[in-house]
């Protein structure tokens, strides 16, 4: 069984592997009832044997869950998407705010080249079609952390569309076998991040920090091909690795560099899709899986009890382990989208369309970017398996821990021992030691 493998050296982290039998994982791992039940339910995510997963609950028809994700990744760049202010984490409040970021009247957006390159690189890595022409729009809503009263985004024509994200799934019977699963990437768009609001309930006021306002984001929209928390978590983990490998985003969820919103609905197979809810504020992979599975089960319970699902936004309450309705956020908001008049269409070129004699600093060549892409995680894993004869799931582990791959390759270089022995030592002894001492690889 794959379950014990998951638990080893896994303290709190979710591997880029999911225990799925290749079908949907309905009814599994989603807790009901009391908090203690929920906690048990969480651990059962990892331990539950596969063949029990298919047992439907409460003796009704099969339920299928449909999960779509909207992932916001902060672009790793020196300056913001449309202004020259610096991008830095944990700077003194309102110290990284340009006139444009503060929405001073008369200021205009100027597109950051590095952000466009990051979008193209990410699009190529996710097998997207890169739109040679893309457009910018304004999305209007009033909120204190949105100084201009609108966000500049790409609604009509985003920079990349129709891609795919492949993540690895550990198959049941044969140990170490990995089945790839794919989720379609609907689009990738460039957009501005908002500032941060800190609610001070004691003084009935809100403090606004605009350091983050205007930072470039890549919004990656995944089609609803996922069906449970595990799949979602795995897919997001893989995306994280890809972004980190490309260098386009540090994708650290704890630091808010990667944020995920999930759209969840349930239905009976063969029938139309159900009403979906949006779950926001998911700031760790673990909570992502938890929240999605909770919400799936909540919807199932609600419908089975004759209730109905509201098309609403819910947030995940970490301590309670459940989703709560965000009643102050209206489900339907008219964003009054309008083209951004201060930014002409973004035109990208490739080797065939690049006009002769153009200044390379003034244009972006998609083909050139494609040629200079680094080796993607999936390719690296493949190579490790081929080169060192290790099990596919071992290759996942090596890539999952920051710095572990490098360490492994250094050891290989230094030693004359057999690669398989090195693999085993690194993954079991070394990693086990780190976990025990609560250290990260980089701290050794």
């Amino acid at each position, binding site marked *: 069984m794959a379950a014990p493998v998951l638990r080893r050296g896994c303290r709190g982290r979710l591997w880029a592997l999911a225990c799925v039998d290749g079908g949907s994982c309905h009814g599994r791992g989603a807790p009901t009832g009391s908090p203690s039940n929920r906690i048990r339910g969480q651990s059962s995510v990892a331990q539950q044997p596969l063949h029990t997963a298919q047992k439907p609950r409460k003796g009704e028809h099969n339920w299928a869950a449909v999960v779509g994700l909207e992932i916001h990744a902060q672009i790793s760049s020196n300056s913001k998407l449309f202004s020259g202010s610096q991008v830095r984490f944990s700077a003194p409040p309102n110290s990284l705010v340009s006139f444009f970021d503060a929405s*001073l009247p008369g200021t205009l957006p100027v597109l950051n080249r590095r952000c466009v390159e990051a979008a193209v690189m990410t699009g190529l890595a996710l097998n997207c079609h890169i739109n040679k022409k893309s457009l910018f729009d304004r999305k209007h809503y009033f909120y204190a952390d949105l100084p201009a009263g609108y966000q500049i985004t790409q609604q009509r024509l985003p920079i990349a569309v129709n891609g795919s994200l492949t993540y690895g799934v550990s198959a049941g019977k044969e140990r170490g076998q990995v089945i790839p699963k794919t989720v379609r990437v609907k689009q990738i768009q460039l957009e501005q991040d908002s500032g941060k609001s800190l609610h001070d309930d004691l003084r009935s006021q809100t403090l606004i920090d605009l350091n983050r306002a205007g930072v470039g984001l890549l919004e990656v929209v995944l089609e609803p091909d996922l069906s449970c928390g595990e799949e979602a978590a795995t897919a997001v983990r893989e995306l994280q690795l890809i972004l980190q490998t490309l260098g386009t985003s540090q994708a650290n969820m704890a630091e808010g560099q990667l944020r995920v919103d999930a759209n969840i609905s349930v239905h009976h197979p063969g029938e139309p899709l159900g009403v979906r809810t949006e779950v926001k504020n998911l700031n760790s992979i673990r909570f992502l899986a938890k929240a999605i599975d909770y919400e799936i089960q909540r919807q199932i319970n609600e419908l089975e009890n004759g209730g109905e699902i509201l098309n609403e936004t819910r947030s995940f309450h970490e301590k309670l382990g459940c989703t709560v309705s965000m009643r102050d956020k209206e489900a339907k908001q008219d964003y009054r989208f309008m083209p951004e008049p201060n930014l002409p269409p973004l035109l990208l070129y490739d080797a065939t369309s690049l006009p002769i004699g153009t200044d390379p600093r003034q244009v972006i060549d998609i083909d050139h970017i494609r040629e200079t892409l680094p080796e993607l995680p999936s390719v690296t894993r493949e190579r490790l398996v081929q080169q060192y004869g290790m099990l596919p799931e071992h290759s996942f582990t090596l890539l999952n821990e920051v710095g572990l791959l490098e360490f492994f390759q250094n050891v290989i270089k230094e030693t004359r021992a057999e690669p398989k022995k090195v693999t085993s030592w690194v993954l079991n002894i070394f990693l086990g030691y780190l976990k025990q001492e609560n250290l990260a690889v980089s701290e050794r």
Partner: protein
Amino acid sequence: MLGRTLREVSAALKQGQITPTELCQKCLSLIKKTKFLNAYITVSEEVALKQAEESEKRYKNGQPLGDLDGIPIAVKDNFSTSGIETTCASNMLKGYVPPYNATVVQKLLDQGALLMGKTNLDEFAMGSGSTDGVFGPVKNPWSYSKQYREKRKQNPHSKSGDSDWLITGGSSGGSAAAVSAFTCYAALGSDTGGSTRNPAAHCGLVGFKPSYGLVSRHGLIPLVNSMDVPGILTRCVDDAAMVLGVLAGHDPKDSTTVHDPINKPLVLSSLADVSKLCIGIPKEYLVPELSSEIQSLWSRAADLFESEGAKVIEVSLPHTSYSIVCYHVLCTSEVASNMARFDGLQYGHRCDIDVSTEAMYAATRREGFNDVVRGRILSGNFFLLKENYENYFVKAQKVRRLIADDFVNAFNSGVDVLLTPTTLSEAVPYLEFIKEDNRTRSAQDDIFTQPVNMAGLPAVSIPVALSNQGLPIGLQFIGRAFYDQQLLTVAKWFEKQVQFPVIQLQELMDDCSAILENEKLASVSLKQ
């Protein structure tokens, strides 16, 4: 000296006939004397005098920065000026002091121009009369001109009892009044639907609207981003060209500016003859509301070109009648968007309510904006609603394309320049103007000017002659996109032909003569 053109005064400075400080002081005292015109919101006296001092040093060393060094200019109060209050004539920005200069302002300052002050306008540039700002309306200097007063059989020296004073037109009325009353040699306006050309026509000035993309909008507080341009108001075409030469050019801070399509500095050649020129007269611009006087002038102007050898043909711009409606849909939509940032949080007016963020936003915006602005925001938001977007906004954009194509087709058929009226009539008295609301007035008064903004073309209003009432009438020339230099060349030829008279503000001058040196303001010819 104050009645001279920019070029003349520039020459005088270089020759040492007058110093920048003297010039500055003359203008400042005249500004004080003409305070009743309400042309200026802020007079930046200290700044100007300091700039004059520095300019003087440069002239003493024989190293002036250029033709604009030491020249008093004024800037419409919707351009961001560092350290100087910028209000847009709105409560929303009263007390707002920007930390940066608009690019066009910076360019003028870099050439040594003296910033006399920020001029009055309709609130947020919404209006065609310069009557709807929080600092009150602007009075047209021609109300006090000998030419007008004599026609009305009034005592030319009486300033009291002037309840029948005339509007300047708008929305750059303050800038127009400032130049027209000789308080400065050039002024920046903005032009979104005619806001530079309209007051130019009513105040007897050259009002130039450059091609969209030629001059940077960075720092111009926007009304309609896709139509706004900085405009130039001067007393003659050569002066406008000189200023354009300084302002034009790509600005990295404004992504809608193009790369250097004109030669700088901009010096206009004098057309020897117009026999190679083709003037187009758009037939759809002959509307019943057009005053017979202006229609007659328009006709005579066309005849003038023809008699001098130019080809004058009638052209058709078939979608003209849809233009004003589309303009309003697109204008209000962009306004609703651009005004979303005014919430009192980072800058500007903030109300006292602190019950909730929403309540604060609502009260701030209600207190900060006048009815005109709020009306446009509401309309614009309506057009941008999901259910209306296709039918209004997208439709208007499509028709806009048709309107722009009308012009392209006209130019492609061999026409070099179009000749049209600028306004429906001469300047009207304020009391008459306010009988109709802002919305109605804008729809009427912008009729000849806003299609040009929709198409992004260059256009210029040239003062042609005085009406029977003794008030200025202007005509408009429209050129091909980025053919600004050619357009101004034609305009310059025409200006020379018509020899528009100088405004006679004798009584104002008399009051100032004690301060000024012995100068009689005779009719100054426009010859250089």
